[in-house]
């Protein structure tokens, strides 16, 4: 490999590629950094008050901030729990016992990427409305009302599980590839371990980094999700930002900057987990 990189630098020493790279990098840096800088300046500077960080301070006391953020975090936690509980046993079962189901799983876990979320919401809201009418005379009516409770809309958790399934599937699939699942599971079973024991004490510890990255990606998606929540009429974090933007522009831009930082932190967590795994 050292020889290859040596050759590369030799061919790269003429000054033309360097000029060419500058022509690419400078406008790119301007395009990506100016909105970042301008937004930050917008949040800390007002002609009337000069420079102050008050927009960030007001955040904590802003009406609805804590409530919507807690709702989003709760939805995120519930989505992570449900999507892992559903997908991990399914992927193990397909790997160990039913390889013929694999194409089915692949298609299922690609569909939510192909179908635009807004069309999913259109179908979902229609189903909920029709479902409420049809189920009115049956005991299930209470259930369908309960899942739509604005305090904790379970229906959003169900929708988010579908939306994050492709990312979770890919993450877990990559994790399962790195270990010999069959040998591990058969060894544990032969030694008398029960299925729950195999799942939680044998498979899960070996999949820690894949599970962590799946969870972080899910959290990032749920915290930023707007389309489904707003069209079904709920107000988690991303919807709250829009609501507050009408009256307090500075605050909404401040939240946007914080959400960019949050995405960065979550992705950093994913890559840290993976690089630690690699070093082991």
């Amino acid at each position, binding site marked *: 490999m050292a020889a290859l990189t040596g*050759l590369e*630098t030799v*061919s*790269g020493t003429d000054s033309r590629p360097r000029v060419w*790279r500058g022509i*690419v990098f400078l406008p*790119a840096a301007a395009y*990506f950094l*100016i*909105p970042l800088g*301008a*937004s930050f*300046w*917008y*949040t800390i500077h007002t002609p009337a008050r000069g420079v102050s960080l008050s927009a960030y301070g007001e955040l904590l006391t802003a009406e609805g901030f804590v409530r919507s953020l807690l709702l989003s975090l709760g939805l995120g936690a519930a989505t992570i729990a449900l999507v892992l*509980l*559903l*997908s991990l*046993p*399914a992927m*193990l*079962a*397909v790997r160990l*016992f*039913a390889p013929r*189901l694999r194409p*089915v799983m692949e298609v*299922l876990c690609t569909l*939510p*990427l*192909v*179908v*635009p*979320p*807004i*069309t*999913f919401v*259109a*179908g*979902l809201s*229609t*189903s909920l*409305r029709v479902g409420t009418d049809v189920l009115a005379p049956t005991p299930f009516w209470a259930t369908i009302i309960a899942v739509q409770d604005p305090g904790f809309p379970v229906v959003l958790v*169900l*929708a988010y*599980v*579908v939306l994050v*399934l492709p990312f979770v599937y890919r993450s877990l699939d990559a994790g399962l590839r790195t270990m010999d699942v069959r040998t591990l599971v058969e060894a544990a079973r032969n030694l008398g371990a029960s*299925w729950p024991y195999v799942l939680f004490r044998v498979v899960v510890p070996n999949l820690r980094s894949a599970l962590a990255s799946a969870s972080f990606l899910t959290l990032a998606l749920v915290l*930023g999700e*707007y389309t489904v929540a707003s069209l079904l009429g709920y107000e988690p974090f*991303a919807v709250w930002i*829009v609501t507050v933007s009408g009256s307090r522009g500075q605050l909404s*831009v401040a*939240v946007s900057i914080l*959400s*960019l930082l949050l*995405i*960065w932190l979550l*992705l950093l967590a994913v890559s840290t987990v993976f690089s630690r795994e690699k070093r082991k």
Partner: protein
Amino acid sequence: MSRSRSRGWLGALPLLAFFAFVFGVPAIAVVAGAFTAQGRPSLANLSQSLQGGYLTAMLGSVKLSAVVALLGAVLGTFLAQAVVTSRSALLREAVLTASGVLANFGGVPLAFFWIATLGNSGLISGLIGLPSGSLYTFWGLVMVYLYFSIPLMVLVMAPALDGLRPQWREAAADNGATTWHYWRFVALPVLAPAMLGGVVLLFGSSFSAYATANAMVGTVVPLITLKIAAALTGDVLTGYENIALALSLDMIVVAGLVMAIYLPLQRRTSRWLH
């Protein structure tokens, strides 16, 4: 083991049942609703969804997504090549990390970034004397969508460009090929599947974007996602909802056609680059 082997697939049952219910029921609702008008089977919704303002919105969405996909693909590939051939490991790491973050930075916050920058009371629009409302146009949206599309393309292209072996370039040079020949006859054919895959990915993400457009342009630029949302939430009159479902079906067909191009290409990408 044999007993559990025969029943082992049951582990997949909860996920399959969940998916069939939570994804299947809305899917049936879309198709059934799209073909129903006033409680009877009909093509009225679908034909209405392909006329007038709805058709304009659909064409607007397709045009916007196509422009963003092509521009994003070209610019993203150039940026990826500049990063891949850069000798500074720090620069490379920084650009790739930033691309990961920005490719995931969409939705409402993205709209607010640009509103604060080039909106009517934005910082830069004041400095350069941008006419009011310039951001809230077709090309304004293109500019905003490129903010996540270019990084997405960088993420797609960087591994592919890394896979181009220096030997290929040397072999081409030894046979008397110029730089242009090398790119035209060696590198681009190898990169083509990855690039087309990237174009499809970019098209799909712009096509289904709703939050950014809704926060930015409202209804100034006609887009199909905005029309669906308006039909879903605006009037609760019966019939409007079925128009939303017909529009949704149109959208799924377009997205499905585009994806049908992508999947076979994705398999071909892995043939040369490893």
